[in-house]
C-alpha cells in the first residue's frame, strides 16, 4: 500500500466549549454530556473490555428488532462518514426491505487526510462493536461485518477483541472482519457492497440502493464506525442526553481530523457548532479546507467566523463531511496544493464512467498549469467547461465532490490566480502540506 507523504502522529484530544446545561450527567455515564463522549478519557487504555464495560455498562439490547429506531430518530443522529444522512431513515429502510439484512460497520476511511475512524478503532473499539450489535438487533440482521482500513496491526488487534467479546458472550452475532483496500473510494457504499460480495471495491450504478439489495442481494445497512459508536451511546443514555451537545438541528459531537498550519495534526472530538477558530489556529493560515478532498476551501478570515455545522457551511458550498479540517499555512500556494490533490483524485477515479475517466485528468492538468507561472489564458474557461461536463455524470459522487473542491479553490484562491497570471506566486515554500499518497495506486489495489 502506498505510504502517505505527510503522515503525522495523531494524538486524540477533546476540543470545544461545553454548551449551556452541559453539566447535567446521564446516570451511569461518567462523562455526562461533557467531552469526550466517544474517546476514552486520558490515561484509559483503549480496547480494554473491562474498562469499557466499567465506564459504559453492559450492552443495552432492546430484546426485539425495531425498538431502538425511535430513540435514534429522537436523537436525530446523522451518519458521520460524510453524507450526514439521518440514521433512523436508513434503519427503517433496511427493516422495510424484503429479506434478512446484513449490517456493515464502515471503517474504510479512504480519505488520506482523515484519521478519525482509525483513531476511534484504536481508542474505543468496543463502542464501535457495541454499535454494530445494537444496529444489527434493530434491523433484525443475521450477519455483521466490520470493514476496516488496511493496517494489518489494527485488524489483528480487532480480531482479538472480537474473539474476547465472543468468549464472554457479549455479542449476539459473530462479527467478521474484512480488509478495505487503501483507495479513496473503498468506503463508498456500493463499492463496499461489491467488495463484500466477493468483487472489487468499485462503485456500482444505482438503483438498486444497497438498503434494498446490497451484499449478496440482501438488504444492507452500512454505517460509518463513528456513527455506530454514537448509536451505542444513544442506546445507553438516551436521545435527550445525546441532544444536550451540539446544535438543535445537528445534535451531538463529531470526531475531526485537524491539520494545523504548523504541520501538526490530531484527532479531536468536538461539539457540532463549535467555532472553527477554537479547533484550528487560524493566525498563521490563509485558508481552511473543510470536509476533506471532496470538501471546500474557505478563506481563513471567513472561516474564523464560522461554526462546525452544515447549517452554517452549506450556504458557502461547504459541508462538515467526515470532519477533516486543514488550515493552509500562509507560506504555501493554495493552487499548488489543489493541483496536487486534484491529480490524486483523478488517479483515484475508478475509471468506470467516461466523463470522470476523461474529465478528471484534464481538470488536474489544467490546475497544474494554473499552479505554475503564466498559465495559458484559456485554462480557466477549460476548467469551468470540464467541471460542468463531469458533474452529476458519474455512478458515484466522485466527480461531483472533486468539482466542489476545485470550484472552491478557484473562488478562494482567485487573488493567487491573478498573481500567477502575472508570472508570480506568493508562496515562500513549495513543501507539500495536504497528505497525498506518494505514488499512484496499482490497478490491482481495488480488492
Amino acid at each position, binding site marked *: 500500500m502506498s505510504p502517505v507523504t505527510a503522515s503525522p502522529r495523531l494524538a486524540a484530544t477533546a476540543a470545544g466549549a461545553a454548551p449551556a446545561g452541559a453539566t447535567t450527567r446521564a446516570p451511569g455515564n461518567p462523562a455526562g454530556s461533557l467531552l469526550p463522549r466517544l474517546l476514552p478519557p486520558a490515561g484509559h487504555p483503549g480496547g480494554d473490555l473491562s474498562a469499557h464495560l466499567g465506564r459504559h455498562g453492559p450492552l443495552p439490547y432492546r430484546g426485539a428488532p425495531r425498538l431502538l429506531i425511535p430513540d435514534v430518530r429522537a436523537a436525530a443522529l446523522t451518519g458521520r462518514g460524510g453524507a450526514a444522512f439521518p440514521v433512523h431513515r436508513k434503519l427503517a429502510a433496511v427493516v422495510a426491505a424484503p429479506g434478512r439484512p446484513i449490517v456493515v460497520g464502515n471503517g474504510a476511511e479512504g480519505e488520506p487526510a482523515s484519521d478519525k475512524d482509525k483513531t476511534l478503532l484504536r481508542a474505543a473499539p468496543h463502542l464501535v462493536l457495541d454499535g454494530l450489535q445494537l444496529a444489527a438487533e434493530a434491523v433484525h440482521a443475521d450477519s455483521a461485518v466490520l470493514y476496516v482500513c488496511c493496517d494489518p496491526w489494527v485488524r489483528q488487534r480487532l480480531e482479538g477483541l472480537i474473539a474476547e467479546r465472543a468468549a464472554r458472550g457479549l455479542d449476539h452475532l459473530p462479527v467478521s472482519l474484512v480488509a478495505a483496500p487503501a483507495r479513496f473510494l473503498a468506503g463508498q457504499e456500493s463499492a463496499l457492497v461489491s467488495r463484500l460480495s466477493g468483487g472489487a471495491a468499485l462503485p456500482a450504478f444505482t438503483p438498486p440502493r444497497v438498503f434494498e439489495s446490497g451484499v449478496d442481494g440482501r438488504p444492507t445497512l452500512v454505517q460509518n464506525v463513528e456513527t455506530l459508536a454514537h448509536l451505542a451511546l444513544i442506546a445507553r443514555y438516551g436521545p435527550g442526553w445525546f441532544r444536550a451537545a451540539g446544535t438543535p438541528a445537528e445534535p451531538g459531537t463529531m470526531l475531526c481530523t485537524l491539520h494545523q498550519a504548523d504541520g501538526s495534526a490530531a484527532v479531536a472530538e468536538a461539539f457540532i457548532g463549535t467555532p472553527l477558530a477554537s479547533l484550528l489556529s487560524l493566525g498563521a493560515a490563509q485558508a481552511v479546507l473543510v470536509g476533506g478532498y471532496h470538501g471546500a476551501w474557505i478563506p481563513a478570515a471567513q472561516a474564523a467566523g464560522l461554526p462546525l455545522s452544515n447549517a452554517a457551511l452549506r450556504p458557502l458550498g461547504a459541508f462538515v463531511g467526515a470532519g477533516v479540517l486543514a488550515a493552509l499555512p500562509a507560506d504555501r500556494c493554495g493552487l499548488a496544493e489543489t493541483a496536487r490533490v486534484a491529480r490524486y483524485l483523478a488517479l483515484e477515479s475508478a475509471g468506470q464512467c467516461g466523463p470522470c475517466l*476523461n474529465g478528471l485528468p484534464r481538470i488536474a492538468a489544467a490546475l497544474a498549469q494554473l499552479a505554475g507561472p503564466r498559465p495559458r489564458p484559456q485554462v480557466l474557461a477549460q476548467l469551468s467547461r470540464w467541471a460542468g*461536463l463531469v458533474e452529476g455524470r458519474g455512478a458515484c459522487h466522485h466527480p461531483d465532490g472533486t468539482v466542489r473542491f476545485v470550484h472552491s479553490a478557484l473562488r478562494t484562491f482567485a487573488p493567487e490566480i491573478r498573481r500567477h497570471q502575472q508570472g508570480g506566486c506568493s508562496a515562500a515554500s513549495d513543501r507539500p502540506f495536504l497528505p497525498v499518497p506518494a505514488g499512484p495506486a496499482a490497478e490491482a489495489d481495488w480488492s
Partner: protein
Amino acid sequence: MTRQLRVNPIACSGHGLCAELLPELITLDEWGYPLLADQAVPARLTRQARRAVTDCPALALLLSDGS
C-alpha cells in the same frame, strides 16, 4: 405519464448511437459520451426514445416511467 431518460455511466462506452437516434434529447460531449436534455421525454418522441434504448450496444440507456 412522464418518461425520463437515464444513462448508466458505467455501462456506457460512448458508442454515440443514442445521439443519432434521438438528437432532440441527446447530444455528445467532447469525449463522445451522451448529454441528456434536462426534461421528460415528450409523448411525440416516445417511440424514438424506445428505439434508442433498445439499440444501445451497451444497453446503457434507460427509459423510466418517471415514478
